[in-house]
């Protein structure tokens, strides 16, 4: 498979008044076209920082990020992003939010309408086209946010714990919904999470990160059927992978918990 996105030796150091914090140290990995990658790590390990660097919202202290062989330096619509916080534009209706990227790009109204119709159907929000975000539940907001990012047809979709604020039931519904959307578009996706089960269930490949300073600790290929169904979460194969990942992450979570003091 062709390499779509490559992170080469990326480090990120945050400088504060009297301390520097290394959030990310010499991280390298590549993501293939149409691959669904999950990045799993304890809190504060810099997993969100990776996404922000790829999105161009944060600058790497060293190293570089290549998309289709070209180095990226600033944000662009070729890298769509879904955040953990609700980031729908509150002054725009659901359909205007979905069409936002196309409108910015100056695409015609009929193009926008087509995209809105297509994605409203996909995310199952028929009848909510004209609603404002404040009327929506958390899960609905994230569905619209995913639709908004996809409608823009990015090369890569970056997802920063998008279901982190949702309750467990809604979360598992959203995972299946995301997979069904992905099944058709087969976008390249980088999905950051701290939920082991989520990482195993939706990812083709899992990168487990170390506690701060974050590095890639392990790469695990999830050898489950491409088409995931909810009952798989109870299968032996699933549980074997989950156990393996859990052990890797447990160690790091303890390190993270014991290292709450800022380093110098």
């Amino acid at each position, binding site marked *: 498979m062709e390499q779509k996105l490559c992170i080469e030796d990326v480090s990120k150091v945050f400088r504060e008044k009297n301390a520097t914090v290394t959030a990310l140290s010499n991280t390298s990995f590549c993501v293939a076209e149409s691959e669904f990658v999950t990045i799993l790590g304890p809190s504060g390990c810099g997993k969100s920082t990776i996404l922000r660097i790829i999105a161009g919202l944060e600058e790497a202290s060293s190293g570089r990020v290549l998309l289709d062989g070209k180095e990226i330096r600033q*944000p662009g619509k070729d890298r769509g992003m879904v955040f953990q916080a609700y980031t729908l*534009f509150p002054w725009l209706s659901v359909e205007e939010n979905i069409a936002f990227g196309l409108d910015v790009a100056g695409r015609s109204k009929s193009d926008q309408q087509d995209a809105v119709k297509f994605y409203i159907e996909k995310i199952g929000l028929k009848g909510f086209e004209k609603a*404002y975000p404040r009327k929506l539940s958390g899960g609905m907001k994230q569905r619209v946010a995913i639709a908004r*990012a996809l409608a823009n047809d990015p090369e890569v979709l970056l997802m920063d714990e998008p279901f982190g604020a949702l309750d467990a039931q809604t979360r598992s519904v959203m995972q299946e919904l995301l997979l069904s959307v992905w099944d058709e578009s087969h976008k390249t996706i980088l999905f950051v999470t701290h939920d082991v089960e989520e990482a195993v269930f939706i990812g083709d490949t899992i990168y487990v990160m170390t506690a701060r300073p974050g590095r890639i600790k392990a790469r695990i290929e999830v050898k489950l059927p491409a088409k995931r169904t909810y009952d798989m979460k109870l299968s032996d194969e699933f549980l074997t992978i989950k156990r393996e990942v859990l052990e890797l992450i447990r160690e790091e979570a303890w390190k993270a918990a014991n290292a709450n003091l800022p380093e110098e």
Partner: protein
Amino acid sequence: MKDITASVARVTSGFLLAAVIGVPLGVLMGSLKICEAFFEPFLGFIRYMPASAFIPLFILWLGIGESEKVAVIFFGTFFQLTLMVMDVTKNVSQELIDTSYTLGVSKRSVFWRIILPASMPGIMDTLRITFGWAWTYLVVAEIVAASSGLGYMIMQSQRFLKTSHIIVGILVIGVIGIIIDLLFKWLYQRLYPWMGKGGAA
């Protein structure tokens, strides 16, 4: 009731002047660090000088005509208004701005696409609040040197011991104030239906 029209005319022109300059300036200060650094110390300093203390100065400079009253109202509201608008604009969520970048919005158009629409309701609220202050300064200005207006009427009534007139004057100011407040709220709901009644989205 020519006193009412005179007062309303003054308060409106003084306030409009403050809003027309203050809102764009505040938005600019809120979105551009350079503008903030340049104007903030200056505005922050003057803001603490009571507008009423400037009345003698305005009378010497501008006389006791309309421009003096408008100047007092302007002075009383402009600085607060600008700084409040600046805060509203500065508080536009960075996450919304980041999101817009990932959707293809450029650094230049983020102002029109995100910052402005996101701050409009807050700006509207600021205007509603500062309009109330404009009324206070109006009465102050009219009590000192005027030949018409509600403040003037109240002062005259005191001179002739017409307590009832004073109370009527105060009530009229209150009623006009509440009407304008309701007007602002009505406009707010018409213009920003996405905000909902509670305020925060």
